[in-house]
């Protein structure tokens, strides 16, 4: 099963899409998925310093597992309100 990746705001504009699907690799973590994403879309590298991550709508650290079928959201610093 694949992983769904979501982009928002400035990052969605930089990548040129809001969503993509990625093959799952056994043992995937936030960091390993991000590595494949940056290889495919180098413009993501500029954002990583301040990016937050959510796995299935829960904030997650870089070493958190990303299971098959999960949704990984790349979240720039939020500015709601």
């Amino acid at each position, binding site marked *: 099963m694949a992983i769904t990746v979501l982009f928002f705001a*400035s990052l969605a504009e930089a990548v040129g899409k809001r969503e993509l699907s990625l093959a799952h690799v056994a043992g995937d973590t936030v960091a390993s998925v991000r590595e494949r994403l940056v290889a495919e879309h180098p413009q993501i590298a500029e954002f990583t310093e301040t990016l937050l991550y959510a796995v299935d709508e829960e904030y997650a650290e870089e070493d958190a597992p990303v299971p098959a079928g999960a949704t990984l959201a790349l979240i720039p610093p*939020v500015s709601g309100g």
Partner: protein
Amino acid sequence: MLIRVTPERLNPEEAIEAVRRDEAGAVDVFLGVVRNTNKGRAVDHLVYDAYPSMAEKTMRELAEEAVERFDLADSAVLHRTGRLEIGETSLLVAVSAGHRAATFEAGHWLVNEIKRRVPVWKKEVWADGEEWIEGPESLGMERAPATMRGS
């Protein structure tokens, strides 16, 4: 508990009615309103993006935590998305409690936490350009270079 992320106009009366209780002598309402200027620059309008399902989940968790922490009767959090003109309401928070002190504190706490945690973003649009704003209070900004955090 009224929680909503929506492109529709926010109505304070709806949130007030949602949190009003016979035993609650105080209702505190906060409106975040689109301002016509930011950092000395004239703002034409704002565009809000959101991760709606996670935003609603995070807003609900914070609203529940506020009820717990401040012994509220109820709380409501609504956030608007899409294009907002100057003077329109982007964020609506209402809390109720037996007495006013708890509502003031809870409202203040909730708005601060919403700005730190809820996955919503604003883009400022000026006459001659636009920029996505990175919230200085956002989770994760402690890793940013000092120039991005402001002071």
